[in-house]
């Protein structure tokens, strides 16, 4: 039997966000919105879910008088992502 896929990560937008954050040190909210083609509201909700799960850190500040939100993956997020990919590979191997 394969393990159930992590429901927090097994969602299109949240997985897209975590996949971007795994490859960089940090990313601005506007960058995540641009890359995922999501609406600001929708992205905000999904980012909050990832934050509540402890997978990402969100820092709010100001840049040139504009609000700036920076997202960064946490060690817990990295571990969850790695486990998710392992589970996914196991799941795909069993299905073959």
């Amino acid at each position, binding site marked *: 039997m394969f393990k159930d*896929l992590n429901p927090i990560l*097994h*969602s*299109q*937008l949240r*997985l*897209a966000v975590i*996949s*971007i954050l*795994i*490859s*960089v*040190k*940090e*990313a*601005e909210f*506007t*960058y995540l919105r*641009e*890359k*995922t*083609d*999501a609406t600001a509201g*929708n992205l905000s*909700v*999904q980012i909050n879910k990832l934050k509540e799960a402890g997978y990402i850190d969100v820092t709010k500040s100001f840049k*040139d008088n504009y609000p700036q939100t920076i997202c960064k993956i946490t060690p817990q997020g990295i571990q969850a992502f790695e486990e998710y*990919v392992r589970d*996914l590979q196991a*799941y*795909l191997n069993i*299905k073959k």
Partner: protein
Amino acid sequence: MEQEKEMTGHESLELIASMIQRTRRDYLDSGLSALLWGSVISFCSLAAYLNQVAWHIPRFDYIWFLTFAAVIPQVIIAVREAKARKIKTYEEGYMGGIWISFAIAVFLLNFIFARYNSEAQAAIYLMLYGVPTFATGYSRRFAPMLIGGIACWGFAVLSLYVGYPNTLLCITGGALIAWFIPGLILRRRYLNAKKTHV
């Protein structure tokens, strides 16, 4: 992108790969810094060489002060790029450390050579030029800079045998191969990438 779309295993893997790929395209170097330093160093060394063999203008060595002046556009480029950047990578932190320590080492060498003149000046500068260039090429798997770093070390050895003012031509060659040519390649890649996904 929908928020809770049910995905198959293959779709998940494809999404992960495509997001990582898209992000990777965004950490392309603009090439401006490499172009700036490649042009300034090769121009100064070539002009100094021509002055030694043909022009004979007194106090022409002051042309090297252009390298200090080039710090101003470098700072402007760095600030602009940092402002425009929406992501930070781990790599840029390491690379920044290497290039800043290189700049400090070159700055100190100027003082050392002003006090203790050495016939191996060009060799020492070139050996130093090779270090951050090779490190950048190695970490980014960017062959033109790997070759550039090795070329600097090759020119460093060559400069020990050709004698002054030919050593200046070794510096010109090193700066062109290590920075100017890779800078042109990086610039072209950067502009092409910008054009393909505005």
